[in-house]
């Protein structure tokens, strides 16, 4: 059933997801939401890799996805720790209010 859907559609879906994620990461102000948008972008990448691997009958794409998922988990761990540090010092994780450095 899923095999009947042309690969192009998957790539289009991945493109749409990536764009939503990118726009969200740029326009949103809450750090957690920005981070969720970045995760969405990574998932769009995963979809593109799986589709490409499927279309090419190659395992490389699927293998890459495992690496991306692992790294995304690591990034989440480090990122949330950084957000907590900011929140402790400043009381907010709104990206607009974290603006000590500029010039």
């Amino acid at each position, binding site marked *: 059933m899923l095999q009947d859907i042309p690969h192009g559609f998957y*790539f289009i879906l991945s493109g749409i997801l990536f764009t939503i994620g990118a726009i969200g*990461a740029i326009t949103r102000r809450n750090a957690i939401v920005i981070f969720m948008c970045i995760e969405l972008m990574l998932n769009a990448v995963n979809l593109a890799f799986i589709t490409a691997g499927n279309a090419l009958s190659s395992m490389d794409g699927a293998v890459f996805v495992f690496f991306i998922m692992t790294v995304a988990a690591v990034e989440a761990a*480090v990122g949330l720790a950084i*957000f907590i540090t900011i929140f402790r010092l400043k009381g907010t994780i709104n990206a607009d209010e974290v603006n000590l*450095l500029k010039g």
Partner: protein
Amino acid sequence: MVVTIPEFAFRWIIPEIIVAVCALAVLLIEVFSGTRNSRRFSAFLALFGACLALYVTLALWNQQEDIFYNLYTIDDFGTFFKVVFLVITALITILSLRYTERGEIPFGEYYALLLFGLLGMMIMVSSNNFITIFVGLEIMSISLYVLCGLLAGNLKSAEASFKYFLLGAFATAFLLYGMAFVYATTGSLDIAEIADYVLSGDFYLTPMFMAGIAFLIAGFGFKTASVPFHMWTPDVYEGAPTPVTAFMATGVKAASFGAFLRVFYTALLPFMEGWSGILWVIAVLTMTVGNITALVQDNVKRMLAYSSIAHAGYILIALVTGDRALSSSVLYYLMAYTFMNIGAFTVVILLGKKGEENTDIEHYAGLAKRYPFLAFCMSIFLLSLAGFPPLAGFMGKFYVFSAAVKAEYYGLAVIGVLNSAVAFYYYLRVMMYMYFRESEMPSEEINLSFAYMLVIVISAWALIHMGIFPRDFLLLARKSVDIFI
């Protein structure tokens, strides 16, 4: 299917293994005895690991081997970069000895993270495959996200880490999407196989492939701090602890340029006309924006951040040419750039004290009267950054610009020379403050400890040596890029 990895493959990655083992040992030491003395021991362990790995890496020179099913490769290009990274890490460890004891970074993990960052860089430049490049890049980046925020209770440092993390993760997504597109159109993640496919004749230029290249440029451009992907650089460089800033400005930049060069000169070279135009624009923008913005900075650390953006622009000039032999100037430039930046940042560290970084240009006023030797060394670093003969910075710029002329990119060379003329202003301004201004602030004692002076003297000596006798270093760089030919 049983996958076997021949045991002898591991002997090629002994430097990486040494670095990883030392990093884990430092972590264990911190867990089981987190005292002041144990931290000093950790620092020496990190230094020892870097030196030992350097010794082993030097033995790999002239060796060529693809290992782990072509995921990883040992060649002179990678070895050259690894030597540079190991020297950088050794210098940063030495100067961190005092910096951490000043009480600003009370964590032993600092050295472990430095070593993990180093490990990531080493993996990145030796990778033959998108997967390993990505894994190396992430090991490096994630260590650095944490390193930036290590100043305990300092909001600026936390903010630097916050910004670097969000923008870094964003850029990683772009890099990965680029890799996905290139994989989808060429059917391989191995950069040598991609090159074969592109040359094979079955290849048609599709919009998807073009988009993939654009995303790759965006991803690498972010890590190398090129305009328009440079927004994070000044903030992060200013907020991060100064040794980490030096590490980022030299090591991370060199590693990103290494991977950039390998991907674009191996996998995508047959297809040069597609990307060299984009890089041309990025190079011009990077130089110009970096230099013009640096002109108005009163904070020396921030000025050095903008100057590092400008230097990325000069390096990109050589990348634009697409000529494999000329790309050796990138390697020479990166090596010279390492020493001038580490030296300059060490002086910046020396002028600060706990809680106060004293990076304002006013703090440099009258430095020559109080500490003539320090001011003299700082002048060497600044003049080298500006590109004043006979220092290494001049030779680096000379090779880069002559590469542009040889490849008949005359416009690019002219813009580059004009830019480096502009750059003289802000470097000389700091020197002017050091030598001709009276200090209006109460003068503070500077702790000229042996560790700092060692780094400063090594850097200054390296700059003079590489400037006067550039030939040996240039030959090494030439030999390293032979893999592209």
